[in-house]
């Protein structure tokens, strides 16, 4: 087991390196291959009407006239031990982990990310709790009575849940419950300041996000449960004289939910990299909204920063899933 953990962790670290390298390549090699000169590249990092000095500074700070591996190395070094940006008249110290510097906003990327992460985290975790409870419960009950009224209605709602766009459900909920009925607030308050206010503001985004995901989870749980409940080991469990409830929970659910761990890990990983649409609809200042702003402003360093952070979460959740899987399914530990 220990060696399994070590192996998976090393694999995850390698994967992370590869992902950052590829991301870096997309940002810096592709434009070069497309024929952009260092000056043209540098120009993109600055706002309108750049002075030649600005361009020279950006070029030097990002190492745009150097080979890409040097650039990459400097970037990794910045993450590990910080970097200093020389902006002509002033210098900016970007502390580790330095995820880059926005020359347009004159601000480091990392503090922006850490400031926004709690919002995205609150959104993702709260919604996940809701959709796990709702989705799995609905899926199990549907699977135990396939074709029943509950099954049909639950699967109908699930179909609606996956097909209705967040722009629609989210806006509608916001309009009705926040603007019209004024039940829920619209300004995010950190949990540490006022937990009830925090939950109040996040309730609608949680529900909108959870509706989408619980729809998917209900369907996955239902099909997984239908399949496991016809397995031989379920018959064995019944043959022992176990109560049906124990058969379902201890033998059925345990096996049916295992594949869900993978899906859940991926979903959380992706969401932590920014719930773009939800954050936009509900004006939450999270990672996703930050990414949208950066893309709109065509500001490359924040985009690169968010991309790397998202990649980190995905790789990290992958590792968590691998380790979880090994504790759930003893057969995994062998290989």
């Amino acid at each position: 087991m220990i060696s399994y953990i070590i192996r998976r962790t090393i694999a995850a670290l390698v994967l992370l390196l590869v992902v950052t390298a590829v991301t870096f390549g997309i940002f810096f090699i592709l434009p070069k291959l497309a024929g952009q000169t260092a000056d043209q590249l540098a120009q993109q990092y600055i706002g309108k009407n750049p002075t030649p000095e600005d361009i020279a500074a950006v070029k030097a700070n990002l190492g745009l006239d150097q080979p890409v591996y040097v650039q990459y190395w400097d970037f990794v070094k910045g993450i590990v031990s910080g970097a200093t940006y020389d902006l002509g008249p002033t210098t900016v110290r970007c502390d580790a982990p330095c995820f880059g510097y926005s020359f347009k906003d004159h601000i480091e990327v990392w503090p922006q990310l850490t400031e926004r992460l709690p919002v995205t985290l609150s959104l993702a975790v709260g919604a996940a709790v809701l959709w796990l409870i709702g989705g799995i419960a609905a899926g199990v009950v549907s699977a135990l009575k396939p074709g029943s009224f509950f099954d049909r209605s639950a699967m109908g709602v699930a179909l609606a849940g996956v097909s209705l766009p967040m722009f629609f459900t989210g806006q509608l909920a916001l309009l009705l419950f926040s603007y019209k009925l004024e039940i829920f607030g619209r300004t995010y308050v950190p949990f540490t300041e006022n937990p009830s206010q925090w939950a109040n503001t996040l309730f609608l985004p949680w529900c909108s996000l959870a509706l989408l995901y619980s729809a998917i989870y209900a369907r996955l749980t239902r099909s997984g449960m239908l399949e496991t409940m016809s397995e031989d080991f379920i018959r064995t469990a019944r043959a022992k004289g176990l109560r049906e409830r124990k058969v379902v929970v201890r033998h059925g659910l345990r096996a049916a939910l295992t594949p869900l761990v993978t899906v859940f890990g991926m979903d959380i990983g992706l969401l932590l990299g920014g719930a773009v649409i939800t954050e936009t609809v509900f004006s939450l200042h999270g990672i996703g909204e930050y990414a949208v702003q950066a893309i709109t402003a065509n500001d490359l360093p924040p985009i690169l920063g968010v991309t790397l952070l998202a990649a980190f979460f995905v790789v990290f959740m992958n590792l968590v899933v691998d380790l979880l899987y090994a504790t759930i399914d003893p057969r995994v530990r062998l290989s």
Partner: protein
Amino acid sequence: MTDLSKTGAAVGEPVRAGEPPRAFLEVRDLKVHFPTDDGLVKSVDGLSFQLEKGRTLGIVGESGSGKSVTSLAVMGLHRLGSRGKNVQMSGEIWLDGKELVSASPDEVRRMRGRQMAMIFQDPLSAMHPYYTVGNQIVEAYRVHNKVDKKTARRRAVELLDRVGIPEPNKRVDMYPHEFSGGMRQRAMIAMALVNNPELLIADEPTTALDVTVQAQILDLIRDLQKEFGSAVVIITHDLGVVAEIADDILVMYGGRCVERGPVDKIFYEPSHPYTWGLLGSMPRIDRAQTDRLIPVKGQPPSLINVPTGCAFNPRCPYADVPKGGITRTERPELHEVGGGHFTACHLSQEDRTRIWTEEIAPKL
């Protein structure tokens, strides 16, 4: 119909419905039908047999003849799960004086695993992959015994040891996938025996195993039966298996019993053409390579549109032998042809004896 008092053997004439049972396990006119989109599947359609404690009944028949459906019916496993409410079951199943078809699901559940237990064909898929073998046995024990985990675990080790698993103290904490096929089946047997059941049903317990292991498992079941004195039903499509272990044999065809009787009668004086076919298709070491394995020709009958008359009719080489005015559409009922030996075939005693001694026996 014969005098009931003569049928003291384990396999006897069915008693009329509602009467108290005469044997430890008594199945009377059991019907198990499944409504499907294609029609009503009559998997078991009027099956009766009796079994005493300390004896072994072998149920044989080709794939789809209703063997597993019968055993699951005895265990009360058809009615469970989402498909359970569609199943149509009728008849009577008496176990130790208690009728199970009309009993409440919870009554049957409390007997399941304690008074009656079952061993399944493929022990790998029949065991839960996420729990250790020990925990699965412990669970089976604790359903019916209010004991702490330690005691239950000791019991699990004791049984693993009894079924011949080496180092049971270590093996008890291993997972099913860490066992070999034979060891898994032994563990499965340990799990079934943990509550000293009075009835043990083994559904193709050796089919998934290789030949040498097969023999060991059969020996084990035989030994355990002697030790525990339980009634054993062993289901198989391999007559070789029942020859070794059974006291009585019941041959199933298309959800019905076509012949049943003591094992010697079935092997040395079989009276039903389908049994002849089964015997002919039995691989035997002492038989010359050239004329071994004469399979029963044709397809198993549809269980939805069951042929009128004898279900074996379309495949029977003797269907056209004159039967003294009995038409093809008349269904042959089980009748006794010798001490405790029953058959469901219209052939007259003379024809039957002649065909068996002159045509079939010499070729076997």
